[in-house]
């Protein structure tokens, strides 16, 4: 059975070239970059080279890049670090209801620590209105955090506009760019952001490594204490192979980004159109155009999302659901709820996320298989009525 992987938003396969680049750093070049001897200095040179590359990839300076263990740590460092540093000036944070849990749960934690958080709503396409950000700002606001693109429904936020508003008021804007880094062109100046989180394993790099971009002049406190690594902003011995892998992944992304973006967008639109036209009572979640090139999020009414995933998995096709009954909270996804999907529709949500290795044949195969699965499962659903039936 040919296996088709359509869950690239969860994680991507590590590119063989990335693996190849990393390997020497497990063996011959095993040094600790903090050491003064040649072993250490070779490793140091390697990570600084990657820091340069990553910085120029997003239009930043090398000293504005901090290596972390991934997207979640970057979000934690951005929010807690800036909140703690800004405590004297204010206690108010603005974010949105559709953020990743790495941001939402950190905000909940900060609320327990005495900060106030405003969670902005989104429209039914999942987009935040920059005006609502403007209105939410108070003279106590010390941080705004809005994700670049949503991991579940793919909607891309107007970060540039929000950034301009934030800059005007002198408030740092953080964006979680885990889903866009390496997939969309990113310039920290055009986005007007002070902080940006990214993770390697979403762009064909290894797991366990990421970055936080911190604009020069942004006041931030460390959340990891220990050695002097990363100019005191993040203690811990460098993950040298991981950083080298991330650098290689960025190098590959820089070469192919534009072409990949166009190719994936075309496949994405074919996929979306195929699902909506072949299966009745389906809908697209998220914005149709202002959307990640690889995200197909649809809801199929009257079916259990996990039942579809199970059947697709049995046929070798990997995707994910929009419901979160599975993730041990019993409620459907907070994102699908935020865009106004009723409980039942949210439970029938599916997310397919395409990637570098997705082919047109893969999409055709899924479009061939999915309608039959839906029909079969609907035939046993007590709630389902065909269009036109009463």
């Amino acid at each position, binding site marked *: 059975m040919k296996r088709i992987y359509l869950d690239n938003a969860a994680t991507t396969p590590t590119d063989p070239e990335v693996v190849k680049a990393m390997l020497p750093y497990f063996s011959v070049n095993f040094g600790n970059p903090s050491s003064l001897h040649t072993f250490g200095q070779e490793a140091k040179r390697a990570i600084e080279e990657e820091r340069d590359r990553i910085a120029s990839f997003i239009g930043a300076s090398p000293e504005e890049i901090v290596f972390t263990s991934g997207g979640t740590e970057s979000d934690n460092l951005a929010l807690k670090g800036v909140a703690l540093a800004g405590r004297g000036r204010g206690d108010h944070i603005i974010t949105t209801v559709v953020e990743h849990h790495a941001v939402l749960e950190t905000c909940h934690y900060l609320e327990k620590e005495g900060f106030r958080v405003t969670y902005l709503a989104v429209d039914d396409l999942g987009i935040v209105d920059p005006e609502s950000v403007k209105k939410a700002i108070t003279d106590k606001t010390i941080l705004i955090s809005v994700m670049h693109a949503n991991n579940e429904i793919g909607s891309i936020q107007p970060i540039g506009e929000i950034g301009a508003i934030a800059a005007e008021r002198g408030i740092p804007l953080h964006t979680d760019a885990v889903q866009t880094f390496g997939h969309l062109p990113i310039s920290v100046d055009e986005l007007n952001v002070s902080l940006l989180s990214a993770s390697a394993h979403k762009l064909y790099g290894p797991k366990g490594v990421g970055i936080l971009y911190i604009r020069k002049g942004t006041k931030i406190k460390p959340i990891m204490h220990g050695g002097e690594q990363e100019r005191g902003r993040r203690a811990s011995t460098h993950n040298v192979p991981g950083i080298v892998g991330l650098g290689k992944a960025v190098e590959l992304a820089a070469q192919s980004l534009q072409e990949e973006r166009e190719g994936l967008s075309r496949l994405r639109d074919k996929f979306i159109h195929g699902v909506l036209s072949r299966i009745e009572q389906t809908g697209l979640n998220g914005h149709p155009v202002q959307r990640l090139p690889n995200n197909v999020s649809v809801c199929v009414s009257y079916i259990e999302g996990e039942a579809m995933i199970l*059947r697709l998995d*049995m046929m070798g096709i990997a995707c994910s659901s929009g419901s979160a*009954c*599975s993730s041990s909270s*019993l409620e459907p996804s907070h994102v699908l709820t935020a865009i106004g999907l009723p409980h039942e529709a949210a439970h029938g949500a599916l997310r397919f996320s395409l990637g570098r290795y997705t082919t047109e044949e893969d999409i055709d195969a899924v479009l061939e298989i999915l309608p039959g699965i839906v029909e079969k499962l609907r035939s*046993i659903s007590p709630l389902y009525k065909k269009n036109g039936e009463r």
Partner: protein
Amino acid sequence: MSKKVLVAMSGGVDSSVAAYLLKEQGEEVTGLTMCLGSEGGGAARCCGADAIADARRVCEKLQISHFVFDYAREFEDKVIGKYVTEYGRGRTPNPCVDCNRYLKFGTLLAQAEALGFDYLATGHYAQIVREEGFFLKRPRDRVKDQTYFLYALAPAALEKILFPLASLTKDEVRAIAGKAGLPVAEKRESQDLCFVDKHNHADFMARRIPGSKPGPIVDRQGKQLGTHRGIAHYTIGKRSGLGIAHPVPLYVLSLDAAANRVVVGEKGALKARGLVAEDVHRLVEDWPPEVSAKIRYRRKAAPCDVVFAQGKITTLFKEEEEAITPGQAVVYYHGDYVLGGGTIAAVL
């Protein structure tokens, strides 16, 4: 050729061992937990968040995939809704029977078939045998025997169901779980209703039956002895909590929903010779003459005579039975074979 088996996993030790045994036999096993939602106020249901997490841990240990299907709405419609309505009518319903009938071996079984599984398995203590047809039988562990809750399955469903614990005792199941290192081996047995714990039952009923109001507690002659809190709070055969001082202990004899009365009397008055069952299900078409009937889960099956008429079964026991309770299931056996059952509608 290995079979594709979907195992309904509640996160408890029984269904975990069921999955483990099937995996050991070399079947292609997939775990599934039914998400039944949660009662407002956070009372956990058996298949709540913790149960889902436990089931997931077991599946990780067994290296099988685990899925969760949302049954919250159906559970509300087919199980809780009926439970509440029946209580309001002065009956004492049996929600486990309905959950098995409509959810586990109704919708879930249909889903399993639609998804391409050969079998649905559960951790029930029951047995299915293939002789000149498929029969439901009592399992080896007579104490845990759960056939009482399974009489309402469709006969055709028996061909698609596996009960891997059929020939094991609870102690053996625990030992297997321990030996296999299943993370739920030490888990406490669930006894109460899964959707409301016994300490909150009164609140739950008060919330669900807003019309429930106090009324008289009377003896069999109609003389008022006290005041009840709403008939939904009482069960036939119940002794405590009446709040009446009386020379001999009093028991609830019947619940008169129409007059909003609770009728009480001495223990001896709880005895009755028979019952009428409705909503009858037959797992076996032709019943042999020797039949025994079980009127509660924890009651021995008692010999009886049965007469079928107009879709009901009139049942006369050889010896009087105590506290026959409308709303409860009556299940008929021939030796170890389950013949079928129904809902007790009237006491004779």
